[in-house]
């Protein structure tokens, strides 16, 4: 990937707090116009990374570029072209949502007032806060604050949106709304966000990075991540005496493991296989030739949560 195609790139970005290494030599590559999910367990270094990118923290070593600008030298210029939603978005309580958006817009725009008002109204509409725009933020729910947070992050039409846990603390409807807004914004900006809600990440992201204990474990497209890790798993439900079939199947070189369970006279096997073609050619015939009735035969789809847990657990060994 050409460096011009990258919105964020870091080289050995590290941060230590006293003796705690919060981030260890991060080399991140975020391509343009992607929805990039930055995943990791609590304390993995996600928020630290975001704060380093924004200039709120200073790296212990290493550096990086955002939109071709140096994160240390050009921090203010970078911030003029990005939008940021903090994890626990806190705004000035004496302001209304409209005043907050106008205040935010004025960091970027000098005027005219009519244009700023137009932009503010557009943002209010974008996040569906029309009915509450003139109420003080003091009385806002978590979901409303989060929506206001997204609106203020988008008010300058940023080239890059950095969102720290945008859907955390929201109810299912709020989460759906936020994801919907993010999907709508993808054609205008690159979205870099961190989350621990893996369902959401799988639903809308196209690129994923997983970080654990301050180290980047993997970084790839979501498709590659879902198909490219570990063995394929087939799930079969059988009726009949499975003893001889079990012995034969486990002897196959392309079978790396079987998990079995028994329920209501049916046996369910989860077979991990290393060769997809061999499994598709031979597995069914092996089962049938042993006199078994096969009531279910399917390839088990891996979801991001399983992949994530596998990767994180493997990285901890």
């Amino acid at each position, binding site marked *: 990937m050409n460096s011009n195609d990258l919105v964020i790139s870091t080289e050995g970005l590290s941060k230590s707090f006293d003796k705690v290494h919060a981030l260890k030599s991060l080399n991140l590559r975020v391509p343009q116009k992607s929805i990039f999910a930055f995943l990791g367990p609590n304390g993995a270094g996600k928020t630290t990374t975001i704060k380093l990118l924004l200039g709120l923290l200073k790296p212990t070593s290493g550096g990086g570029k955002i939109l071709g600008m140096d994160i240390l030298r050009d921090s203010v210029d970078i911030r003029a072209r990005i939008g940021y939603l903090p994890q626990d978005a806190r705004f000035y309580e004496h302001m209304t949502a409209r*005043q907050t958006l106008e205040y935010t817009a004025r960091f970027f725009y000098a005027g005219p007032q009519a244009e700023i008002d137009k932009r503010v109204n557009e943002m209010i509409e974008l996040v569906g806060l029309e009915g509450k725009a003139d109420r003080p933020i003091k009385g806002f729910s978590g979901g409303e604050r989060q929506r206001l947070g997204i609106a203020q992050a988008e008010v300058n039409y940023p080239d890059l949106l950095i969102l720290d846990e945008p859907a955390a603390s929201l109810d299912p409807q709020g989460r759906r709304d936020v994801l919907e807004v993010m999907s709508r914004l993808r054609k205008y900006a690159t979205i870099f966000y961190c989350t621990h809600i893996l369902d959401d990440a799988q639903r809308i992201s196209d690129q994923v990075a997983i970080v654990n204990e301050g180290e980047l474990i993997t970084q790839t497209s979501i498709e590659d991540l879902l198909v490219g890790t570990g063995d394929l798993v087939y799930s079969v439900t059988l009726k009949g005496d499975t003893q001889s079939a079990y012995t034969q199947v486990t002897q196959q070189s392309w079978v790396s493991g079987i998990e079995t369970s028994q329920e209501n006279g049916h046996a369910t096997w989860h077979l991990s296989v290393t060769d997809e073609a061999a499994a598709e050619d031979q597995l069914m015939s092996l089962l049938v030739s042993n006199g078994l009735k096969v009531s279910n035969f399917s390839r088990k789809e891996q979801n991001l949560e399983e992949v994530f847990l596998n990767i994180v657990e493997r990285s901890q060994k």
Partner: protein
Amino acid sequence: MSANTSSQIQLVNEKGWRRGLGNLLRGEYSSWFKSSRWWKHLLMWFAIINGMMGIMVIASVKAAEEGSEGPPILYMYGWFGAMFGAIGVMIIMQRVLVREKQQGTAAWALSKPVTRTAFVVSRLVVNSIAILLTSVIVPGVILYLTLGLFSDLGWLSSLGFMAGQLMFVLHTLYWIAFVLMMGTLLESSGGIIGVSMALFFVFWFGPNLFPPLIYISPLLLIISPAPDQLNSLAGSFMTETPVFSWVPLFSTVVSCIFFIAVAIWRFNRQEF
């Protein structure tokens, strides 16, 4: 919805350390003057300064009627200004940076295209204006009128009174700058108030033990060590008597500049 494609909207044109300053000033200004905060403070300071001084004026009028000596009005004005002014500033200013750091609003504002220097300057400028207006200038004008109309001091020289008020302004600025600086050095409000109070009492009682302290004390701008001792600078200006020393004025100005410089330096190195 791509970056800045709107045909008419104009980008902010601030350069260097002033990036974001205009808007930060506007935001801080609104927290004081577009809410009930300013008149609540004004009312409070009116009650404290003008209320106390009103009692003094009544006492002096009564004393004059009885042919006895009244309370030293200008000395008491300095005393109230020093005591309540300094403590009031500590209470108001200790929240300014620490609360924003704790609540996350500082980190949010600093995620916008603003410099940290602009952030500190905006808090310094707006809070100074608001505090000086509500606790020094308006109560001072009311006092001037009260003295002229009701006390046996009569109409003081307006120029002298203004020069005296300038000393009150400088004294207040000293504490504003000091507490602002402490807000960048400490993370708790209790710590800031504790250190500030300790310094105040060093200046309040210290000259009795170590007399040269009066030359670096901001209190000496507005309060005499005792009513019958040498006059404060404000007292000298108001009564048009010779100034005992310009050193306290000079050291206060230098201290203010030092405190502000440290605050900016330190805030630029903080992490959020």
